[in-house]
């Protein structure tokens, strides 16, 4: 697989008109990293497409298993007309925004969950030797295109909710939508990176990360009124997942914020996303520096 990996990326880079850029500036470094990420992802996509039927099946499976979350909500609504004071289209809006944002982060950065196993068996050393940022390599490691299944079901539910909601779509509300999805994906992405950094120390504890990623996403699918105030406070001020969709979505839906925060917090997600990225970046550096190979 390794030799194949080298071959594929060499071939693709030859196709590109862009020349290799010396890492003279930070911007160039970022561009370098993104390009490497793109090349590795392209390689894995090509490898996935070799087994097309297998890809279609696993993508459909991914779609179905993640859609179970919405099936649960539908089963609940077979018995009630509202949950926590929210009607089905409103919950579908929360679900759709959270699942789409998370689906994007999961598709682009999901492989980071595997870092712990690479630390454990020492194969991270291979990545350290390559002249490509480790973060880019880890993020693209065994890139799984089947995760479009999760993204797909999120988008479908979001589209359904937009059709079913009876809202006055002012320009601000319309603009909120891409802002939410992009900022939300970035916040979840930061959680993925921070979680991966944590795995440098706690290699076997990679499952803890799932609590904040998959668990956080499950939490955000339901209205905040369902949960205790302390839990809502926790995901607002400690792990700021509430900014992925709750805060901005409550504004779009014209709902009261259960914590009584001012309306302005609805516009904070981009800022929160930037801060999260900075913190995740610091955690990643600290983690990478602390890395000791297994030595066996």
């Amino acid at each position, binding site marked *: 697989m390794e030799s194949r990996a080298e071959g594929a990326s060499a071939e693709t880079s030859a196709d590109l008109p862009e020349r290799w850029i010396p890492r003279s500036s930070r911007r160039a470094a970022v561009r370098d990293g993104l390009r490497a990420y793109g090349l590795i992802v392209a390689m894995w996509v090509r490898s996935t497409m070799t087994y097309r039927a*297998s890809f279609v*099946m*696993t993508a459909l*499976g991914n779609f*179905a*298993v993640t859609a*179970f979350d919405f*099936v*649960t909500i539908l*089963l*609940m609504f*077979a*018995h*009630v007309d*509202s*949950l*926590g004071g929210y009607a089905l289209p409103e919950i579908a809006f929360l679900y759709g925004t959270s699942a789409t944002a998370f689906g994007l982060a999961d598709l682009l950065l999901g492989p980071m969950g595997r870092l712990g196993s690479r630390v454990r068996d020492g194969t991270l050393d291979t990545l350290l030797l390559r002249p490509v940022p480790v973060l880019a390599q880890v993020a693209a490691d065994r890139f799984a295109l089947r995760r479009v299944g999760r993204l797909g079901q999120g988008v479908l539910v979001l589209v359904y909710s937009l059709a079913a909601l009876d809202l006055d779509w002012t320009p601000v509300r319309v603009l909120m939508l891409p802002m939410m999805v992009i900022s939300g994906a970035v916040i979840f992405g930061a959680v993925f990176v921070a979680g991966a950094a944590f795995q440098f120390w*706690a*290699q*076997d*504890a*990679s*499952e*803890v990360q*799932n*609590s904040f990623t998959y*668990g956080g996403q*499950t*939490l955000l699918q*339901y209205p905040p*009124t*369902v*949960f*205790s105030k302390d*839990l809502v406070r926790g995901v607002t001020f400690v792990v700021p997942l509430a900014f992925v969709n709750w805060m901005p979505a409550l504004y779009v839906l014209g709902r009261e914020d259960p914590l009584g925060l001012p309306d302005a917090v609805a516009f904070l997600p981009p800022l929160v996303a930037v801060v999260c990225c900075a913190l995740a970046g610091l955690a990643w550096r600290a983690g990478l520096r602390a890395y000791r190979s297994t030595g066996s």
Partner: protein
Amino acid sequence: MRLYIAVAAGGFRRYATYRVATFAGVFTNTVFGYIMAYTYMALWDQRPRLGGYDLPEALTYVWLGQALLATCAMMGGGFESELIERIRTGDVAVDLYRPADLQLWWLAVDLGRAAFHLLGRGIVPMVLGSFVFELALPADPLTWLAFLVAVTLGVVVSFAIRFLVALSAFWLMDGAGAAQMALLAGLFFSGMLLPLPVFPGALGEVAAVLPWSSLLQIPADVLLGKHTGWDLAAAYAFQAGWAVALLAAGRVLQSVATRRVVVQGG
């Protein structure tokens, strides 16, 4: 018999080795338990006695689901990925030479694993959940004993299904598709999403007679005291019936596979 006990003990020890992973699993189960418990509270708030459960029973059901998720391997995991890999690489030929039965060997491994998961990943989330939520845990030790029997039968049913899934690799080479289908069915029909009596109409009735209801729904109902006397015997008979039928199907498939399929490898 002694051999299989030793194998089961090995399965137990193998999972007990990774303490940090166990801690991480407990943490995740607890977080999901909290999230689901709140959603159930919102639902039962509007429909008290939904599906015949009151709120403490419904919340107990949530935490039982978290406790049994790993134990009954509702999302897969455990021996089948290993067996699939051995079939794919041809290592299974070595297993078939051994003076031990392939199915019983892996059953012993899986029972050892399940025992560890029940102790290591089942108890702590339940206790943590009971600190925050009012649960309907029985005081009678006999009910707990009856529950353990139901869980054991559930693990055997779960094993029998996953053994069939793993054997499909003899023909399909790549077991990922079959494993994924099994995962979907396991999550949906075990009652992990919502208790099966809450499923609307015919869907709930169909789900109740499928083997997956042995994994969570029946053990949970036994613990909640919904099955007593002859009803309990009927519940056990249902689980045991599926276990025997599916294990027998596994035997048939195994003999067909070993007779007709050329094992890979050089």
